[in-house]
């Protein structure tokens, strides 16, 4: 069965969910606090005559109801970055602190890596990895425009990530925002459901497991790993967590999120998952008028 129908059993208010998936999503921006304050950006958007609306859960995000970012002064100065609301969730949950070392395992095109650099106040080190040179070029364009000085970019398969270039030290935190079937981007990419296939989900979930496993291994004892996707498929979400919980010494932990969400599912079709996957959060398009998203926070054992 194809999405969205295959999720009827796990999504509350399924008809509203289906209707929300068909509505286009307005542009959103994140204030790049490396270069400007929220007040600076408000003033610059006012001067440029660009309408913007705050969002409830994050004071550095604005929805642009009438336009997309790109051809105005605050964009040119790297004060703002076009980033969908839910895309700002995982770095917010990871919450790295100034001076820390962070790994972004699948970093291009860099919205989250630059957000991590902003969260550490551009003091510390964000190692941003991607396996695709074309996408790395987009990542580089963004790190330059946003003026991030704490991001190093590596071209490699995250599953075999090497700590060597940076002296071998493990990370304080890791962000694992993996490639996925992207069902949750349906409001921006109307082909997302048509292009969906079970064989792709099966293939990509193997990659997701290996990347998350590598991230847990590359993170210090007591460190934090955030796993996220922009998809609804439990095969790519709770099943991946279940797999890694069994093999690596780590645990899911609870976290606050001021967006309306549902807990992770522990049963899907014929499978049952570790009961702690409930601590993961599912974000559906009809609850907050956003894209769809999945986010889990793990702690590496001491």
């Amino acid at each position, binding site marked *: 069965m194809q999405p969205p129908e295959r999720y009827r059993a796990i999504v509350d208010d399924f008809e509203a969910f289906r209707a929300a998936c068909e509505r286009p999503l307005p542009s959103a921006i994140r204030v790049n606090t490396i270069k400007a304050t929220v007040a600076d950006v408000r003033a610059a958007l006012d001067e440029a005559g660009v309408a913007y609306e705050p969002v409830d859960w994050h004071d550095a995000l604005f929805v642009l109801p009438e336009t997309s970012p790109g051809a*105005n002064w605050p964009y*040119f100065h*790297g004060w703002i970055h076009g980033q969908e609301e839910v895309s700002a969730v995982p770095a917010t949950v990871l919450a790295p602190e100034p001076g820390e070392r962070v790994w972004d395992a699948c970093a291009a095109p860099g919205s989250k890596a630059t957000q991590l650099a902003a969260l550490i106040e*551009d003091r510390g*080190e964000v190692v941003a990895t991607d396996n695709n040179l074309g996408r790395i070029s987009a990542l580089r364009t963004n790190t330059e*425009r946003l*003026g991030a000085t704490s991001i190093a970019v590596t*071209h490699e398969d995250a599953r075999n990530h090497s700590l060597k*270039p*940076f002296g071998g030290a493990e990370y304080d935190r890791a962000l694992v925002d993996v490639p996925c079937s992207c069902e949750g981007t349906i409001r921006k990419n109307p082909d997302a459901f048509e292009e969906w296939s079970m064989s792709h989900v099966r293939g990509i979930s193997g990659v997701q497991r290996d990347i998350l496993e590598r991230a847990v291994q590359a993170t210090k004892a007591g460190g934090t790993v955030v796993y996220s996707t922009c998809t609804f498929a439990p095969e790519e979400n709770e099943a991946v967590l279940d797999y890694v919980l069994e093999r690596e010494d780590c645990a899911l932990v609870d976290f606050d999120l001021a967006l309306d969400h549902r807990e992770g599912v522990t049963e899907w079709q014929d499978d049952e998952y570790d009961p702690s996957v409930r601590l993961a959060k599912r974000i559906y398009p009809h609850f907050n008028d956003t894209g769809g998203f999945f986010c889990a926070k793990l702690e590496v054992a001491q």
Partner: protein
Amino acid sequence: MSNDSTKFTRLPESDADREAPERATREEVLEFWDDRFGVPPETFADYTFWERGKGKLWLYRGEPPSPVDVEALGMTFLRTRQEHWKPTLEAVQRFGEHATECVIHLSEGEAEAFVAGYDQELDWDGDWGYLVVTHELAGRREPVGVGLYVYGELRSQVPKGRRRELDN
């Protein structure tokens, strides 16, 4: 191997530590920003400088072992190994607020023409060469990029991929 173009090599502190004769030293880079633009050397105290290829300098917040073979290390910063060293647009946007000399302030219309890539005839009493270009944004003088002032003309150095026709 330290001149390998895919590797980043950390700049030596001063002449005494220099192995490759053409490579700039940290001391020279700090002097350049101070002499040309009045940017105090302590502005860069928390950053390391790296060269990749011949003369392209990068600025980074961390201190990995040198040389390091990665795709990028912080931001592109300064072009050396040519007669007149040239700061990048991104370096000027990030650190140009500390500049007190060789700064040219543009009106709104002039600044829009500058970011669209146009050269403009403008009055300027100071040195010729690379200037920090500023304009008024959100109540302050904000650095936009680098211009080359010669023969009564400010030549926009905004890279092609960075140029914009602004909506304002």
